[in-house]
């Protein structure tokens, strides 16, 4: 449909985080650091940004339902309008950052990029970055569903104010984050001192980069897996400060188990990963997946997958936000590359057994 290539599209980073976590601190850093790039920033409250920039736009965070019979299909109406206005100044900035309020659900922002044709034409969602307060997040995960949504939705989590907690408290909060969303890149910071390259230009919603940027996607929750056909830098925070360039079997041993990291189970929000080395039957899988998101889409916040279909020499990749899915034939499987299918769902009260059973039905025997 769209003739613009991904490279022509303006990357948009969504910056979320509960009240007081440090979003504004991070935003001020992004705007004041000497990186030679110009950002247009859509903020929910004017005046908090202490930097003069004619490309700071105040937004009203208006969530609109689409008239398409899909109950969770909400978009940010103000964002559609602001992006349209900003596109008139294309060339005057390199990227856009959308700051949400502390109580916002990131889904309508992300869905705006799936639903609106004009937005899709000109801009691409880069990543959802969530700033979390190391001291208070554990409490907020108990009493604030918004905070949990923001963690579950994140591609990148900036765990801020780590200087204000003990190592035990830090281990606990990281364990709780991991229980909800083991796929996000986690960065420990003080005063949001994170390399900007770790939060910007992540390509987290780029179907072509589903694997490349998220090695955890391959490996998390998977301790018996011994294929290592990639060589990415691996910086899980549990492992940081250790040899995180090293990729061997013992990595998995470290992961999640080493360093006394506690295992938590979040009663409410979980992730679920599925895999099989047998080919999937596309005539069964596609209807199953569509039916799954149609019926359980309100519970499923994010989904991603890399799929191997019978009689298909291409890798198929997909991602979704609630009921919205997009997918494409990515590239041919390489010689010697294991033709494995892997799926991940992050969501609230996921019907795990039903999903596993349904997936099993799509595997060819």
């Amino acid at each position, binding site marked *: 449909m769209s003739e613009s290539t991904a490279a022509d599209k303006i990357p948009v980073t969504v910056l979320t985080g509960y009240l007081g976590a440090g979003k504004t601190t991070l935003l001020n850093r992004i705007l004041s650091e000497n990186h030679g790039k110009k950002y247009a920033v859509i903020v929910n409250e004017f005046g908090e940004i202490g930097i003069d920039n004619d490309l700071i736009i105040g937004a009203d965070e208006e969530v609109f339902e689409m*008239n398409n019979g899909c109950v969770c299909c909400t978009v940010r109406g103000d964002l559609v309008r602001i992006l349209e206005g900003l596109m*008139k100044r294309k060339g005057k900035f390199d990227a856009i950052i959308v700051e949400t309020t502390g109580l916002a659900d990131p889904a309508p922002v992300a869905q705006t990029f799936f639903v609106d044709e*004009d937005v899709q034409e000109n801009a691409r969602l880069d990543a959802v970055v969530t700033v979390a307060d190391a001291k208070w997040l554990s409490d907020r995960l108990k009493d604030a569903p918004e905070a949990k949504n923001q963690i579950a939705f994140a591609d990148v989590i900036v765990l801020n104010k780590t200087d204000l907690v003990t190592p035990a408290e830090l281990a606990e909060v990281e364990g709780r984050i991991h229980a909800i969303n083991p796929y996000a890149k986690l960065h420990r910071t003080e005063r949001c001192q994170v390399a900007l390259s770790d939060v910007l230009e992540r390509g987290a919603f780029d179907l072509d980069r589903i694997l490349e940027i998220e090695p955890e996607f391959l490996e998390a929750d998977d301790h018996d897996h011994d294929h290592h056909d990639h060589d990415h830098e691996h910086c899980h925070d549990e492992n940081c400060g250790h040899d995180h360039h090293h990729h061997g079997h013992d990595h998995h041993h470290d992961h999640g188990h080493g360093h006394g990291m506690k295992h938590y189970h979040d009663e409410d929000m979980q992730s679920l990963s599925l895999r099989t080395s047998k080919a999937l039957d596309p005539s069964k899988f596609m209807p199953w997946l569509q039916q799954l998101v149609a019926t359980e889409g309100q519970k499923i916040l994010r989904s991603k997958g890399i799929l191997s279909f019978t009689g298909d020499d291409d890798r198929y990749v997909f991602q979704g936000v609630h009921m919205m899915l997009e997918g494409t034939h990515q590239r041919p499987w390489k010689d010697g590359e294991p033709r494995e299918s892997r799926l991940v769902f992050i969501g609230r009260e996921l019907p795990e057994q039903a999903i596993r059973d349904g997936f099993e039905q799509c595997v060819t025997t």
Partner: protein
Amino acid sequence: MASFDPPENSASIVSVTDRVKSIDLGSAVTAIHFLGDVAAFVGDEEAVTLVTPEAETTRLPIHSGAVLCVASDGNRIVTGGDDGKVVQLSRKGEVTTLATDAKRRWIDNVALHDDGAVAWSSGKTAFVRSVKGEEKSHEVKSTVGGLAFAPKGLRLAISHYNGVSLWFPNMAATPEGLEWAGSHLGVTFSPDNKFLITAMHEPALHGWRLADARHMRMTGYPSRVRSMSWNGSGKLLATSGADTVIIWPFASKDGPMGKEPAMLAPVPARVSAVACHPREDILAAGYTNGTILLVRITDGAEILVRKNDDAAVTALGWNAKGSLLAFAVGDGKAGLLTL
């Protein structure tokens, strides 16, 4: 119009492409309005370029950033910008700032009344300034999507999420609300003041018969309707958004209800701009592939004004007499056709 004379059963389309004066504006155009016989090409950013029928150009700066909205009554052009300003360009070429938003918020919409009143909106607030300079404002529940003055009386339609508010700035009464679920953007009254039509965020139009607020759903578009134009008699509404020009009939008391729209000038691209001739039943249609056609509404006969290329037609405009058609394509290619 003598020039519109397609031969019967011609094998190839009649072309007037050789009669187009090309103009290179160098930057994208958001709207075209004529002030007399001078075409004003309002840029996406910063400036208006005035072009005489002889294709002499003059560039006038109007905003310090993006031009977000434009309206004209034929005697002046009013624009709103992301610099928070409402700016007027007169027929004499004088540029004046009519208003500046105190918080430098974007001016999202503007509208003009024939009596000289001006309306604009920023966020959820709509403002009206009467000819006497009296200013009033009204806040709606969500961001204003579009503004239009009714043809009679000082009455402003303010579209927003879930409907339209009809506001009489000179009356203390609460504005009348027309409700329909969804986000309403562009808004227009039928010239006979009987119907109100909005372009929705979804690919659809919604209309109300003003006498009884009866709903009219106009759906079936593959993409959002960004351009709407009433024909000279005010009984037909031509719209963009599909691969043909979709024309809704408003002559009867029920408007288009129960009737099929006319679908003219199919091209393997989407219609991106439409502009009806001010007097004759002819319209100009611009497409996403750069094609521009003149189309006779009565029988769909076509004349080629511009051949396709890569970029979309962004704006079309006629002078009041209907003797000049101006267009803009992509990032600043433009042209003027004398009929």
